[in-house]
């Protein structure tokens, strides 16, 4: 209710007068941002924070709409059916690609157009604080000698993919145990049911601060600014890099001026000191990818994932 009021106030303010800007104005005044996540979780927070800071920069009012259900399929369908005039976008995460591949909905990630990428979430390998594993090498040693137990979150998650790829790169036969979600996995890591788990650095922060878990390696290409002592998986000798992207997509056939406005807007907002402070505390790494590269990136990610699902027997 409050949210609705705020939106209408913002709307009223936006309609009051044309913004005094020299550059070409954005074609629409109100932009709807869709997400498949429910209020208060991942992509929803991302969009709401982003629109707070991006609104003044792009001189538009943003309205976040949650279209939950169907693992993102509903939101993607709504996006695909929207006009490509810059008035509707959708928050992309690997989920929308996974759902497209797993359940063959009517509208897949191929029916919408990636716009730009904004952030990467950092995936890390962690273990409980009092576990015998001090390095990734210790984990691999156990996996080689007996049978390692590695925990991932949901079956279709990027985390599982990361572990399966690591398993292959290391040539070990560890059991990759999937869970119902990150919380579930955390319990199994803490009580020692599994040797290691994979999760987002930002989500593990409370446990790290509380001294409950230890991070062994990061899946990113470079070490994290927030934790420069932790080695990457790649420098530990296994050629696996995972990039959990967070960006936006629109309906197919977006006009060039809209794409340009977003490319400029996102680059500017990532420099905004207020926003910077906010996303740094959430341990999100800015990872701007322009439109052309982002289309190629998502398509590459899609075909890699499809190959992975076929290899692991999830889809035929």
């Amino acid at each position, binding site marked *: *209710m409050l949210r609705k009021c705020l939106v209408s106030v913002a709307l009223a303010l936006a309609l009051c007068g044309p913004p005094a800007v020299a550059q070409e104005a954005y074609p629409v005044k109100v932009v709807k941002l869709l997400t498949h996540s*429910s*209020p208060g*979780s991942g992509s929803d927070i991302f969009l709401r924070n982003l629109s707070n800071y991006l609104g003044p920069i792009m001189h538009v009012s943003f309205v976040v709409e949650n279209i*939950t*259900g*169907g*693992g993102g*399929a*509903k939101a993607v*369908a709504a996006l695909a059916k929207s006009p490509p005039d810059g008035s509707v976008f959708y928050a992309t995460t690997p989920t929308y690609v996974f*759902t497209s591949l*797993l*359940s*063959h*909905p*009517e509208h897949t990630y191929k029916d919408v157009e990636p716009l730009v990428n904004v952030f990467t979430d950092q995936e890390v390998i962690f273990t409980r604080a009092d576990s015998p594993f001090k390095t990734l090498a210790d984990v691999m040693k156990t996996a080689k000698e007996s*049978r390692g*137990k590695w925990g991932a979150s*949901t*079956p*279709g998650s990027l985390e*599982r993919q990361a572990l399966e790829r690591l398993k292959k790169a290391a040539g070990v036969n560890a*059991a*990759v*145990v*999937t*869970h*119902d979600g990150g*919380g*579930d996995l955390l*319990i*199994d890591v*803490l*009580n020692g*049911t*599994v040797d290691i788990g994979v999760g987002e650095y930002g989500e593990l922060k409370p446990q790290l601060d509380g001294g409950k878990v230890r991070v062994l390696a990061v899946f990113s290409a470079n070490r994290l600014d927030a934790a420069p002592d932790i080695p990457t998986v790649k420098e530990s000798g296994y050629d696996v890099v995972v990039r959990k992207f967070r960006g936006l997509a629109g309906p197919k056939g977006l006009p060039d001026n809209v794409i340009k406005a977003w490319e400029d807007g996102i680059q500017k907002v990532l420099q905004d000191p207020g926003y910077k402070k906010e996303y740094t505390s959430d341990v999100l790494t800015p990872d701007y990818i322009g439109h052309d590269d982002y289309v190629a990136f998502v398509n590459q990610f899609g075909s890699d994932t499809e190959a992975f*699902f076929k290899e692991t*027997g*999830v*889809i035929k």
Partner: protein
Amino acid sequence: MHTILQVLSFYGTTMMIPVVFAGVAWGIIGGALPGISPSITMALLIPFTYTMSPTLAIVLLASTYVGAEYGGSVPAILINTPGTNSAAATTLDGYQMKLQGRAAEAIGISLYSGVIGSFVGIAIVVLLTQPLARMALLFTPPAYFSLGILGLSVIASLSGGSVLKALIAGVLGLMIATIGTDPISGVSRFTFGMSDLLSGIKPILIMVGLFAVSELFLQSSGAAWVKAEEGASRVRFPNARMRRRLIRPQFIGSVIGAFEGIMPGAGGTIAAFLAYNEAHRWSRHKDEFGKGSPEGVAAPETANGTVACTTLIPMLSFGIPGSNSSAVLLGGMLIHGLIPGPQLLQESPRVILGLYSGMAIAPVVLVILGVVMLPLCIWMVNRPQHYLMAFIYALIVSGVYSVDQSLFDVGIVLAAGLVGFAMRLFAMPFLPMVLGLVLGYMVESSFRRSLVLSGDDYHIFLQDPISLAFLGLAAIFVGGALLAPLLKLLWPKTTQTRSVSDGAAKNGEL
């Protein structure tokens, strides 16, 4: 000290107190309407909790339950028709008191006893939930599997009715639980290409259909209930002498209520009848029972008040709903992303503290609203049934639609209503189906996760001590249910008192 400050901050800074008032008021109304059980009353509220914070949402639902348990006694006393199933025991002496012109006194005793019961229940919840759930970290996948099996074994010990029918209902629930994405491999199952089914069917949709919609179907084919006479529109609380006399039945009621609430599958109806029986057994005024004994009203109503709280213990600490109402509460928590069970108390202690704070003031609010709303309850009970039904029907459909703006969900609720109607015709109990639905996913995913961990070695379920203990308990439950007919032959007297409660419980579950 810190905790107390936190509790006070809930009262001061959040909508907690208004929410408790709203919940108790709605509960009293729903409870007072014959045919609208506490679970239906709560299910109707679920869609409205969607935009609330998780803490307020569950406080609203829990206080609705507290209100409904009292509301049910009003028509039980006034028109000899229990508004809720568990108020059935209250009709025995409550209606007799009304015939003697002591309706105001009976309602006063019911309210007073319900409040006492609620306070006792809340104290027990606060004392027991944390220690039980502190074992969270000890729970490994095999332990979760066995916990689920223990929950399902309750089906065998549900009193009354045919075990076969209960099993059929349970399997139906398990089947629905398999729809959606496979928990271990990620393959889509039984989705028939519909993206709406990918994340499975939300248990709450089935519950609303089963409990509420099927009830409407049934009510539309039945006769209207008797009118309550005007005149008893105020409450008279018991005086000091009466309060002393009521201590004994209230003690009996709260002990039985606490116990039955903690035991999954027992539920309020059985507790109320057991409390009535025991209060009778230990009373100094045995002859008054059945002829308008105040103790006969106090004992079951105290038990109801206690059960309304203690039924939360298995739900919060293990995620096993012990009654229809706590199953609805569980569904309400799920849509807020709160998964009841050992993890919940570790991950969301604030939500739990909020729940406790809300429940602590619910009985106080109950006293106020119980007095204020009595005339309204009498008015409601006397409205023509078809208007009420149409109103509730609109409430369900619009409520379900508003959660996700999904007509698909409305379709599921209506389909579940038809299934529920058929199940009522065949006298099949609902709770097994709900248990299957809620626990099926946990049982399956933990079973398969354990086997991935052990490399397909089934001994893992016996090697884990907690798992072994749960499996043993489940075996006792099932074995006990099989032995029960044998025991009945040995102690015919207990069977008689028991069968009264069994019969009522059987109807109660429906």
